[in-house]
């Protein structure tokens, strides 16, 4: 099993980690989810049937792990909303995480795009990360998501539109960049 782990790690770990950290935007959490992905993969590697590549198989499991995480978060938020007056206390529960070091040193435009990704749905974010951050083809993305290629294209189009709208939205508080 260690040999199989070594092989997966050497070939795909960078892609896996990159995907998860851009999905969840939290280094510690991405590290936890990476472990979860490897545990699932290594426990089920005997059922890998070779119909997809190892890379798309690994990333499709990573995608499910990420979705599970967001679902759990949503349930947690819903439970909290049941007990709190959200209007008054909600602000305290907002994500206060700062930008990761790698993004913090980038120019303003990059930081804006990074933040604008939050405006996309999970599906749109998946497609944008696989297609443009990871540089995968439409076909590879479709395999990972288990979608048709046309669904990938449609979701990609909507995601980019959403990103564009967010980037072009007037800034609050009067600060502005270029006209």
């Amino acid at each position, binding site marked *: 099993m260690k040999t199989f782990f070594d092989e997966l790690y050497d070939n795909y770990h960078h892609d896996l980690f990159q995907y998860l950290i851009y999905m969840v935007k939290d280094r510690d959490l991405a590290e936890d989810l990476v472990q979860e992905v490897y545990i699932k993969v290594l426990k089920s590697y005997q059922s890998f049937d070779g119909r997809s590549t190892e890379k798309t198989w690994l990333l499709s499991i990573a995608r499910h792990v990420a979705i599970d995480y967001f679902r759990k978060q949503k349930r947690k938020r819903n439970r909290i909303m049941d007990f709190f007056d959200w209007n008054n206390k909600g602000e305290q529960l907002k994500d206060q995480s700062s930008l990761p070091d790698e993004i913090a040193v980038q120019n303003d435009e990059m930081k804006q795009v990074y933040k604008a990704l939050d405006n996309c749905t999970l599906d749109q974010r998946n497609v*944008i990360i696989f297609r443009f951050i990871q540089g995968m083809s439409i076909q590879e993305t479709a395999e990972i998501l288990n979608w048709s290629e046309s669904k990938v294209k449609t979701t990609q189009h909507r995601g*980019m539109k959403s990103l564009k709208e967010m980037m*072009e939205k007037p800034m609050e508080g009067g600060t502005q960049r270029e*006209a």
Partner: protein
Amino acid sequence: MKRKSYSEDELKELLGNFPKMEDKHSKEDLYRSIEPELNKRKRRIAHWITPSMAAAAVLLILAIVLPVFLSSHPSNEYSGSADQENSSTESANERGQDQAKSTEQKPSELDDSNREEGNNPSLDKNETEVNEGTESPFTIQNHSPDTESYVLPGKNGEVVVPFTVIKKADEENQEVASLVKPEKWGLAEDLLKELTFNIDEKREQAEVIFPDNFSINGSAYTSIISESIRWRLYPYNVKTINIQTESGSPVVLGNLGEVNTLPIIEEDRYFYQIYSSESSERQFLVPIKAEKEMSLEDALNRMKEEQTYGNVVPAVPGHVTFPSVSAEGATLVLKVEHDSWPSDQQLIRMVDAILATADNFGFKDVRFHNIKPEKSSSYDFSEPIPVPTYLNPIEMNE
């Protein structure tokens, strides 16, 4: 005031320039973190108690109902289709054998002298004895035109028993269904005799035709029928199992509803135990379905456990442990620790069950370390032992 307007290409370029995020932990750290989870046994009592109790209840009902159903099921109920199905099954089997002959040569073949009658008490005329013979009673490592695979359910319908009929020279053209003796072997009536099997190994697919009026009710009966079909086709080079009625409709498989295909055996994990009915002295290796993600180490340990199914006993005795389980290419390497063997038979049936289980996990042969004596009546443990091609050989009477 509006911000800058971005084209899609500009956005793509920005996304493409996102920094590479590196994991700061090393590969070794990561493996150390996940290793305890990988070695953890999967069982969580709270999770399986409820389904187990439900399954036990179903089995109990089945144990009462199925024998009655099987014995009262008239054998000629669907006789209208029997001729057609038999000839089709037979030709399919012949095709299967031709294919098997050319593709299923195993590294070590049985010594011909061992196959002669009289040398092997377990395959003699009575064909019921599982004695300390000169070859394994449970497995066969070569293939010849006079062998044919078949499946019968266990007495209470909880398990299916795949076996291999070794025909006499004058029986080679007879269909195997007419040769099987379920009652004598402690098994239940053939559930597949009304079905037609068309096997096309070239296209790696099989078509199973159900009579139009064939009805399958209840989850237990559904399971036993589908498992029987899957095991019936296991020896063949088949990757797709299509099922339909004579009129071309999907088959209504009990609680599964309308079904067009069945998964092949290779899509699931099985380990082997021993089927031993009180009404017969013959014993069989019997596949027990397990979780898909079960490891081979888990499988070996499960082979020591009592099952809830009737007539199924552990294949690995309690005094045996496996301190080391590893793979060298397609060879499974097992270190075995054990006390003394009460009989050669106990050792042979354990080895056979392990070989069959290793086959399910994709191994070609098994090297046993530390088994004493180094040679049993059937095996030489100083060499790797090939996994069997066929299970449970039964030689027909004169």
